[in-house]
């Protein structure tokens, strides 16, 4: 197709705007990374910069050399994310399977039971009091896994819609004639055919666990259970505390406090897995979001 001069000019203009947008979106991450490889003195003297005058890898060397607590927290985040995501997918797909069956008695009631949680909730105070006084999950591993993210009604509804629309009923029937029970159908028909939605929903659940710092804030004071986000949260709240109480800072042993570049390096390590996996998973994220736009 031959474009007129005006159209070509229009195209260039569109590209220019989008390039500017891309810079706005990406530049902050570059600043974060650059700060992590800036020499500490340069950082304090010249501030954060996209092109530092003096580079240094000492922040990363410091993390490797003395960062057993950092590596431990990193490992915790991996464990929390994997355990949480696996249980989440299992619970939501099993529930979505039942709701996708046409003739299930009581389906209407169960659907409403699931959907109503999207309209109304008790909020933090009752949830917190219930989990800590009845279920005693304070300062346990469960406190990081169970509240908030284990199952979302939205995901269940999206999965149900996907199962209904993309798994032919004949397959169910064929399976039933062969004497397959529901567990067999779920394992051999629903899971393989529902893989795309499982991947998308799993990514969102995994991301929620990877990025979460609130469960630890509410329920877990025990630092040995903390993930990387909680560690980062603690470091930045200490800084804020020092800024507001500058008289404390002088009395504090500043050498024990992680330097700016080390903090930025930890933050960068925290987002690294998302950054590395992103190009491969981008299309599943995009699909998952697009599914959400279609009403269940």
């Amino acid at each position, binding site marked *: 197709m031959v474009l007129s001069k005006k159209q070509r000019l229009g195209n260039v203009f*569109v*590209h220019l*705007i*989008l390039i500017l*947008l*891309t810079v706005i*979106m*990406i530049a*902050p*991450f570059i*600043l*974060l990374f650059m700060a992590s490889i800036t020499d500490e003195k340069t950082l304090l003297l010249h*501030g*954060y*910069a996209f092109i530092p005058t003096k580079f240094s890898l000492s922040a990363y060397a410091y993390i490797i050399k003395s960062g057993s607590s950092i590596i431990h927290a990193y490992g915790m985040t991996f464990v929390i994310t994997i355990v949480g995501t696996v249980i989440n997918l299992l619970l939501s797909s099993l529930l979505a*399977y039942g709701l996708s*069956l046409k003739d299930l*008695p009581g389906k209407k009631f169960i659907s409403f039971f699931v959907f109503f*949680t999207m*309209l*109304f*909730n*008790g*909020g*933090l*105070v*009752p*949830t*917190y*009091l*219930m989990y800590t*006084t009845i279920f005693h999950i304070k300062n346990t591993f469960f406190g990081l896994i*169970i509240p908030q993210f*284990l*199952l979302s009604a939205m995901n269940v509804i999206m999965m149900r819609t996907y199962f209904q629309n993309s798994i032919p009923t004949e397959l169910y029937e064929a399976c039933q004639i062969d004497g397959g*029970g*529901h567990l067999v159908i779920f394992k051999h028909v629903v899971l393989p055919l529902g893989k795309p939605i499982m991947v998308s929903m799993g990514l969102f659940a995994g*991301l929620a666990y990877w*990025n979460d*710092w609130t469960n630890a804030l509410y329920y877990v004071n025990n630092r040995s259970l903390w993930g990387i*986000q909680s560690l*980062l949260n603690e470091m*930045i*709240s200490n*800084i*804020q505390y020092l*800024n*507001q109480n500058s008289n404390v800072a002088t009395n504090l042993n500043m050498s024990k406090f992680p330097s*700016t570049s080390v*903090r*930025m390096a930890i*933050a960068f390590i*925290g*987002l690294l897995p*998302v950054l590395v996996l992103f190009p491969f998973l*981008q299309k599943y*994220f*995009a699909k998952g*979001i697009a599914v959400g*736009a279609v009403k269940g």
Partner: protein
Amino acid sequence: MTQKNGSLPIQPKKNKKLKQWLPVYLMMLPGLVYLFINNYLPMAGLVIAFKKVNFSTGIFKSPWCGLDNFEFLFKTKDAFIITRNTLLYNFAFIIVNTILAILIAILISEIRGKVAKTVYQSAVLLPFLMSYVIVSYIVYAFLSGDTGMINHSVLPLLGISKIDWYSSDKYWPYIIIFVNFWKSVGYGVLIYIAGIAGIDSSYYEAAALDGATKFKQVVHVTLPALVPSIITLTLLSIGRIFYSDFSLFYQVPMNSGMLYNTTQTIDTYVYRGLLTLGNVGMASAAGFYQSCVGFILVMCSNLIVKKISPDNALF
């Protein structure tokens, strides 16, 4: 099920039916139990807003106190501030993010090159995937007092003296709205791109044949086709207008007390009341207020849409 009255001929049939569906119910049970615990029990727990909580006797045995908690809450200035902030921020987010997301989606959809398209699309999505803790580190890199990029490199260029960002509350509405745009516009963009991709290209061809310019095609073809998605997304946001993202309002202003006037929302207020100040009564009253008004708003917004265009209602 009334098993007792089942006469003999029906009994085997019923048993068979139960036998057929029992495995399904068992498969669904774990998820339903979780929803019961995580979502339904706290709803019942909302009654503590009417109690004077005493931890030594336990919550259930704590004495009732009527509307005392609410009276305390609404006597303070806080009730007004948190309601105002929560509502105004949400309105701003809905307007800014909807308009910009549609605009960006239209521009990205214009791009023919596959690589360029993927790059732009990925770039707007990337911040959406980051944790708010990391976002607050990034914001701090720009705004911190002495070393921050803005104070150190940008303001001197413009001849403006340094600003103490973390103690000047008047700037925060803009900062929060911008950070929210940066972090979450990608979600809307992807939804609208999917919407635009679903438009039949023959509409555009016909419009082009009639001599419609690109701009006119957008106004008369693209936008009307996006209306259902716009309504659904806006409806979802209006339904949540009494809620705020705790992480955004707690983490990004770095929990700075001097910024509460413009950054305190219902969610941060409830958290601080419950866990930092130990004022369970006021926190639970604010939480009750949020749950109930929030619920009424979802129902109303859905009702209105149901009247105007029934196809777009959520339920």
